[in-house]
């Protein structure tokens, strides 16, 4: 069933247009066809109008009856009807229009209800997945933290072991923090926040993201070859895109990482490549699903879902493809937008 806008002036206007057009066709065909066939011409017009709702259906069928009567039913060009048989034709036209309009209305209501039920079911399902994932993935680091911290507090534990225990507390707490911030950003982006867009050079984003990941993991072997490409993005959200792609490559791939970018007239393409074992063919798409993990490495399976949600909110697309010589490329495509003038106003002169 076509999804039509509600009974607006537009739909009423279009029923007038459809009936007028049909009358035009009828006037041309009049010398060659029977009156009954002409009446049939109006049926499609009335049906089309009826799909838009009961109001347009009534307008269209009234107009159709009047036009048919005046233009074609003898005596022509009067409202008078010679043969009572034509009154039946008029009644059929009205009846058809009302029946179709009622059916269309019912269909529309049914579709809306089904859609609501769908959304509710999906939300329920998501909530259930979320809960089970959150309780498992957040509990694991919490369990480590609790156990390690209580052992460290035990005076019998030697100093070297204590240092090791405390290091694992720090590492697990950081992991917990990353998971929570991914979860938070995902919820935010999916509930439809509008990214605040600014022109940001990609080398700035890559540098900041690499530095943030390196603060947690230590130095990462990576080359950045993004030239002077700039993108209109939310700088905070897009840094998270890069942080997640880099973390993903470090955790599931292998160094050296490559961050490259190209721009042509239609789009900007950013790619993050690693030299790991690569993904199974079926996983290239699945890795972007929430809570999906392609490997046994610890994590909540949220990083790439966040990447996709943020890129989509920017009107872009993202996917993974295998590298010819081992590893995976993660691709982010953004639609090209003309950049504003690069040069700012002259600096304020200040006495030195």
């Amino acid at each position, binding site marked *: 069933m076509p999804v039509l806008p509600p009974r607006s002036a537009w739909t009423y206007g279009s029923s007038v247009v459809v009936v007028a057009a049909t009358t035009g066709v009828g006037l041309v065909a009049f010398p060659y066809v029977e009156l009954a066939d002409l009446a049939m011409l109006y049926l499609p017009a009335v049906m089309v109008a009826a799909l838009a709702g009961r109001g347009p259906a009534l307008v269209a069928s009234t107009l159709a009856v009047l036009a048919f009567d005046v233009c074609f039913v003898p005596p022509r060009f009067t409202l008078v009807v010679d043969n009572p048989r034509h009154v039946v034709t008029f009644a059929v036209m009205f009846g058809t229009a009302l029946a179709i309009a009622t059916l269309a209305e019912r269909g529309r209501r049914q579709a809306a209800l089904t859609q609501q039920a769908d959304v509710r079911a999906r939300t329920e399902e998501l909530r259930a997945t979320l809960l089970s994932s959150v309780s498992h993935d957040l509990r694991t680091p919490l369990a480590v933290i609790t156990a390690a911290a209580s052992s460290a507090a035990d005076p019998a534990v030697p100093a070297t072991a204590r240092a090791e225990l405390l290091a694992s507390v720090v590492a697990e707490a950081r992991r917990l923090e990353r998971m929570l911030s991914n979860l938070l950003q995902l919820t935010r982006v999916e509930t439809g926040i509008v990214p605040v867009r600014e022109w940001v050079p990609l080398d700035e984003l890559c540098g900041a993201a690499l530095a943030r990941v390196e603060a947690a993991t230590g130095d990462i072997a990576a080359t950045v070859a993004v030239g002077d490409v*700039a993108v209109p993005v939310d700088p905070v959200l897009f840094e998270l895109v890069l942080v997640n792609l880099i973390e993903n490559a470090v955790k599931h791939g292998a160094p050296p990482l490559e961050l490259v970018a190209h721009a042509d007239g239609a789009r900007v393409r950013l790619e993050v490549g690693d030299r790991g074992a690569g993904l199974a063919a079926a996983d290239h798409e699945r890795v972007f699903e929430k809570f999906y993990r392609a490997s046994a490495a610890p994590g909540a399976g949220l990083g790439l879902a966040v990447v996709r949600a943020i890129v989509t909110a920017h009107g872009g697309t993202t996917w993974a493809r295998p590298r010819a010589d081992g590893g995976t490329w993660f691709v982010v495509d953004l639609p090209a937008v003309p950049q504003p003038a690069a040069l700012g106003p002259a*600096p304020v002169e200040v006495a030195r």
Partner: protein
Amino acid sequence: MTGGLVLIVDDEPAMRRLLSATLTAHGFAVVEAGDLAEARRALAELPRLVILDLGLPDGDGLELVRTIRAGSALPVIVISARDREADKIDALDAGADDYLTKPFGTGELLARMRVALRHAASAAGEPAPDAVFTVGPYRLDHARHVVTVDGAEVHLTPIEFRLLALLMQHPGKVLTHRHLLRVVWGPAAVEQTHYLRVHMAALRRKIEADPGRAKWLLTEPGVGYRMREEPDSGTP
């Protein structure tokens, strides 16, 4: 590093306890405040530095920054959650010296405190017009308008020179987009972050060995820029 009184303002007792224990272990004396009113009273004890959580039960921590800045150069380090970029920027623009995103390591906090205390000690006035700044491989000579990287002169545009001068004057300190735009382009340009980004990108390409992995001109996403502090530049 020894001594000095530090005021800790945070409504979470657990956080205050932790910070207090850490700072005491590093030779500081500590006074704690759980809300704005307590913090205002504690200022009378003349702390050397304030660590301030922005979300307080009886008002905005930003007010405390303004109160302090109205009368002194007392260093203020703001701590806040990651999702509150705007609050951080407001606090920095109101005169806070630095910010830390929760959760943070205490090593990071101590490093930021060191920078803030050093700036407070040297912030007796604007640099002399003939000042020469040296940070890492960079040397910037104000009077001669010359910048060298590892001894080799690089040509900078006037805008790039002024941006670099501001950042080198405050190594380790984050300068907000708004602040840099106001000082270099004037108050009418404070929203034009893309001007700033374009010129910072050009500057990075001229003075960083690998502009995609900047080692000195650091970006604080959504907030501003920071010239890295030399790792071994110890106490004031």
